[in-house]
């Protein structure tokens, strides 16, 4: 097992290198560079800021100064190596768009927030989604099942910003007990976590329902009934055990997605997470942040997959024993 994990980690590092190289090439090839945008803003922004014609040529001097400041005065391959070096030594320098913050600071400040929110949302989704799915599966084709299925459809189809407004209305207007905006107190977590958990509740409930229904159709369930098992024995002892294992596989991508894909919810509730930084990075061509974002995204995804595989390893004897 340890050997396996070491091998996987080796793969992750290799993949990250490939990923970052591809991302670097792509990012540098998108029209519009950070410097270009800065200079263009300088020329075309608020009236009364630009330069006279005889001065335009002089701006080139600024350009070199600025290129030096942002480390863009060296060839591309060297820029890439600098990035990798920064990544390894955890010293990636300042963000372009947030010039007084370094990339490491941004990530150190925002990752814990995004991570906590994502984990809380998934926890809530598990606590609510699994029983809902089980209930629907056990009462298949009853009104409860239809209700749950409809609910699953609705919450997975509605984007989380609509959910955000919905929970604001629910808990800030109709039952005015929570603030819509702000950060720092435990109660500030409630609404964003809630808004973000709806989608996952839907997918977990839906997934649970199908996988439990599937498990209940299996021959070994009939065996369990034939052995004289009660509902508790058969459904919770036998069927659930099998249907929960595949559920683990969807949790990994779900958590990675929630960690990074929460821009709107962050903005809506004032959550100082990673999402907003990252969503703004691309628009302003903040290369270091964009690169960091790509690597983090890849890293989170791959680590989550590794964790899922490890959990799977412990849950599913078929894999555990054959790997031994």
């Amino acid at each position, binding site marked *: 097992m340890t050997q396996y994990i070491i091998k996987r980690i080796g793969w992750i590092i290799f993949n990250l290198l490939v990923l970052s190289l591809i991302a670097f090439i792509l990012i540098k090839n998108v029209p519009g560079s950070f410097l270009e945008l800065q200079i263009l803003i300088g020329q075309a922004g608020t009236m009364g800021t630009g330069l006279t014609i005889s001065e335009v040529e002089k701006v080139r001097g600024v350009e070199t100064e600025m290129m030096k400041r942002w480390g863009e005065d060296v060839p591309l391959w060297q820029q890439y190596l600098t990035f990798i070096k920064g990544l390894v030594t955890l010293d990636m320098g300042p963000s372009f768009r947030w010039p007084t913050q370094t990339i490491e600071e941004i990530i150190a400040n925002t990752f814990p927030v995004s991570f906590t929110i994502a984990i809380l949302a998934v926890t809530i989704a598990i606590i609510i989604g699994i029983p809902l799915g089980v209930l629907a599966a056990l009462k298949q084709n009853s009104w409860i099942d239809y209700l749950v299925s409809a609910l699953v459809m609705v919450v997975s189809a509605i984007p989380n910003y609509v959910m955000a407004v919905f929970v604001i209305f629910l808990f800030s207007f109709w039952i005015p007990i929570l603030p819509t905006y702000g950060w720092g107190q435990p109660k500030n977590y409630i609404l964003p976590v809630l808004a973000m958990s709806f989608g996952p509740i839907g997918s977990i409930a839906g997934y649970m329902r199908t996988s439990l229904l599937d498990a209940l159709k299996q021959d070994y369930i009939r065996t369990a009934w*034939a052995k004289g098992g009660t509902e508790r024995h058969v459904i919770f002892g036998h069927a659930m055990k099998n249907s929960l294992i595949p559920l683990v596989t969807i949790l990994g991508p779900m958590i990675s997605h929630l960690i990074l894909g929460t821009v709107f919810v962050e903005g809506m509730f004032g959550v100082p997470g990673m999402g907003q930084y990252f969503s703004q990075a691309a628009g302003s061509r903040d290369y270091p942040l964009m690169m960091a974002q790509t690597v983090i995204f890849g890293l989170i995804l791959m680590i989550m997959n590794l964790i899922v595989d490890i959990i799977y390893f412990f849950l599913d*004897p078929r894999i555990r024993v054959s790997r031994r």
Partner: protein
Amino acid sequence: MDLLLSIDNLNVYFYRSEGVLKAVDGISYNLHKGEVLGIVGESGSGKSVSVLSIVRLLPANGKIVDGSISFDGKDILKLSMNELQDIRGKDIGFVFQDPMSSLNPVITVGQQVMEPLLWHNLCSREEAYKRAKNMLGMVGIPFPEERMKEYPFQFSGGMRQRVMIAIALICNPKLLIADEPTTSLDVTTQAQIIRLLKNMRSELDMSVILITHNLALTSNFCDRLIIMYASNMMETGGTKDVLNTPSHPYTRFLLDAVPDIEVEKELVPIPGTIPDLINPPEGCKFHPRCPMSMDICRTEKPPLFPVGDGHYSACWLCGRE
């Protein structure tokens, strides 16, 4: 001998989108304590459905619409769920057709064997462990203690079927129902399993219902046979009587398909196809394939005519004589 199981005019229907399928169409038989009953028939003839009814484990769309089942003096169809669960696994052990899928892949074999004891609160965990170990040894699993910690996928097909038998027998049931326990196994293993069942029956003194395609397997194990065709009982009687003096054309067909009874051999298909059970033929269900069919066969269903001592046949040919 005392009566253990009595089935009277059992009718089981499946409600399917195409219509109502009569999977069991008025079957009656008795089973005595210690007796071994063989049910033989082609695939789809209703063998499984008829025995699943005994423990009320029909698929959700199947329904017992008529008849009665009495087991050990209890009216099975009137029992509450709790009473039924009390019988399942304890008084009636079940061995299913496919050992590959009938065991839970993520639960240890030991746990699965112990469960019937634990679920019925028959003994403590330690005791259950000991009994499971012994039982696994009895059904021929070497090193049972180690293997109890393992999972089904670590067992071969034959071994798994032995585990299934251990599970069915762990509570010392009064009745063991083995639904084609050997179909998916290779020929040598089939014989071993049948030998095991035979040994276990004599050791534990129980009744057995053995369902099989294979007439050859019945000859030196079963006391009595029921031949089923298209949801109906075609012939029933002592094993020797049925095999030596078959009186129903369908039974004869089955026997012709097995040239030497002692040589274990799969059933050779009979010309023609099993009738569509949603729109079954009128009269004798076998008439489309029967070389001896007469006019009456096409219109009226033959009742079971006695043809010997406890030997009956549902064929107009027998009624005439």
